């Protein structure tokens, strides 16, 4: 599971890491994710979820992915229901606290049709961080004494050679592909994030391929005016796709909050018969729309305007 250093170096060496235009469509970017790949998602819960990219992968009928994220919300349900992934690695998995426990997650895991591999939130973060740093593990001080550690593949305790203390070592996570949605980046993939960065910076460094979706593509000159705001560097990025409202119905910091009515609709659709409800949801919002604008139209213009008004409010006094 943990990649040897030489393997990791070799994969990185083979990538074209130069400053070059990487702009493409969602459909082209989807081709960069092979069936069966391990994929990490940026954002957290209902925030900066790379929804448009997942939407494209579901439409492309990809299968067999192993998908990791700090915390999974509705996108986790859709991964299971579409067959895009039946193995999810995360620390918490449900639509969100106000909507209670996910019925779809329960249906798939309790029937053993899918796996939810649970790690503590810090362990997820440190697994990505080890991957970002090019070392095979990180030492940490939680998870021990719990049932979580017993079920976490690869986690192991060690006696610290400096202090004699018991530490937990968690294995590096170097996903094949990372999908990250950002507020803005340039055509080369220099991304500047506003607000909460979650685990995205480590994920981008850890992955062997990075696909950025972005609300806006800006000029390289604009990026260079504030280089200390660049949080993901072009040399880690392999594809750039401009997708306005690319996290909908989740939020994108400073631009739009979650589309709450639509989130409620999703919860209602999946409440009674999760399998049927999720299938219907996928049909209506993923398979049928002719393009991303059509997807947004089906969510609804009033919803979009409301989410945008609330989103930009974070900068109001």
């Amino acid at each position, binding site marked *: 599971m943990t990649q040897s250093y030489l393997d990791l170096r070799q994969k990185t060496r083979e990538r074209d890491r130069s400053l070059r235009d990487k702009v493409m469509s969602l459909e082209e970017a989807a081709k960069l994710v092979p069936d069966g790949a391990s994929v990490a998602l940026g954002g*957290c*819960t*209902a*925030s900066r979820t790379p929804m448009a990219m997942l939407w494209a992968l579901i439409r492309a009928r990809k299968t067999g992915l192993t998908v990791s994220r*700090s*915390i999974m919300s509705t996108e986790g349900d859709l991964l299971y229901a579409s067959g895009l992934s039946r193995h999810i690695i*995360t*620390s*918490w*998995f*449900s639509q*969100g*606290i*106000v909507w*209670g*426990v*996910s019925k779809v*997650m*329960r249906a798939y*895991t*309790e029937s053993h049709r899918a796996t*939810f591999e649970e790690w*503590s*939130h*810090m*362990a997820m*973060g*440190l697994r*990505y*961080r080890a991957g970002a740093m090019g070392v095979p593990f990180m030492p*940490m*001080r*939680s*998870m*021990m*004494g*719990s*049932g*979580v550690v017993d*079920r976490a593949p690869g986690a192991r305790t060690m006696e610290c050679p400096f202090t004699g*203390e*018991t*530490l*937990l070592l968690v294995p590096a996570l170097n996903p094949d592909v990372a999908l990250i949605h950002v507020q803005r980046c340039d055509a080369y993939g220099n991304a500047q994030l506003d*607000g*909460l*960065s*979650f*685990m*995205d*910076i*480590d994920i981008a460094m850890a992955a062997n391929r990075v696909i950025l979706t972005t609300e806006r593509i800006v000029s390289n000159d604009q990026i260079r005016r504030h280089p200390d705001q660049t949080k993901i560097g072009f040399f880690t990025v392999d594809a750039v796709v401009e997708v306005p409202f690319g996290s909908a119905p989740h*939020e994108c*910091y*400073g631009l739009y*909050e*979650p589309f*709450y009515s639509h989130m409620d609709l999703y919860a209602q659709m999946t409440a009674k018969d999760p399998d049927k409800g999720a299938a219907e949801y996928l049909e209506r919002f993923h398979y049928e729309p002719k393009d991303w604008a059509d997807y947004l139209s089906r969510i609804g213009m009033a919803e979009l305007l409301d989410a945008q008004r609330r*989103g930009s409010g*974070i900068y109001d006094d």
Partner: protein
Amino acid sequence: MTTEPVRTAPPLAAVPAYTASELLAVMSARLLKDGQTVFAGVGIPLLAAILAQKTHAPGLTILFEGGVIGPFVEAGKLPPSTNEQRCTRRANMLVSITEVLLMLQRGYVDVGFMGGAQIDRFGNLNSSFIGDADNPKIRLPGTGGGNDIASLADMIVAMKHEKRRFVEKVDFITSPGFVDGSDSRARAGLPAGGMFRVVTDLGIMGFDEATKAMTVVALHPGVTPQAIKDNTGFELPVPADVAVTEVPGDVELAILRELDPARLYTA
């Protein structure tokens, strides 16, 4: 994000002036001290922390798992999770999730404060599986940062007091309390932190210094020792001279209702 929300029924003791959730929030808030740093989950913990800020602890610092340090949440705009932009309102600092959890590990946090779905005699919490983990009756959302917080900070847990939630042994230890009691927590690799208080709609519990078993510290007005024992799935000692809490004050209740006018968390 730690556990499912505490959706409580009307309080057992007949005090119609406030709901069980309001009682929980007020009692929890009073446990927080001015100048402390508290790592709070959404729901009752967040409400209680803001209530403390607006009453006796104006210098309380709130941390959210999303990477937020020192925010001031606006009345009527409670965040739906600790990882969304509403959490960042007027914050002092935003960092990554990994960084904010590492601050906990580094020791900068005084109190971890979360809700609970199932707890046992030694304060272990379960938010992962009801039934057998390999073949669960219910797959719950999991730990989130709950495990990290419980492993690394002094803990306050706010939850509804029901026999099915207060069990002899949790089905699964998601977030460790004192594990098997006495020094087993430290021996497992967790020398710092541990359960401090469990706040319920019936009373406030602490843990015996030697055995680390749960014990009652105070009862809410109108709650008898027998009532709390009847609602607990294990032997819960109630000292003869047990304290009785003060009922929620009008100011406390008014603040809570202003914070959560839609009654998302306090109904």
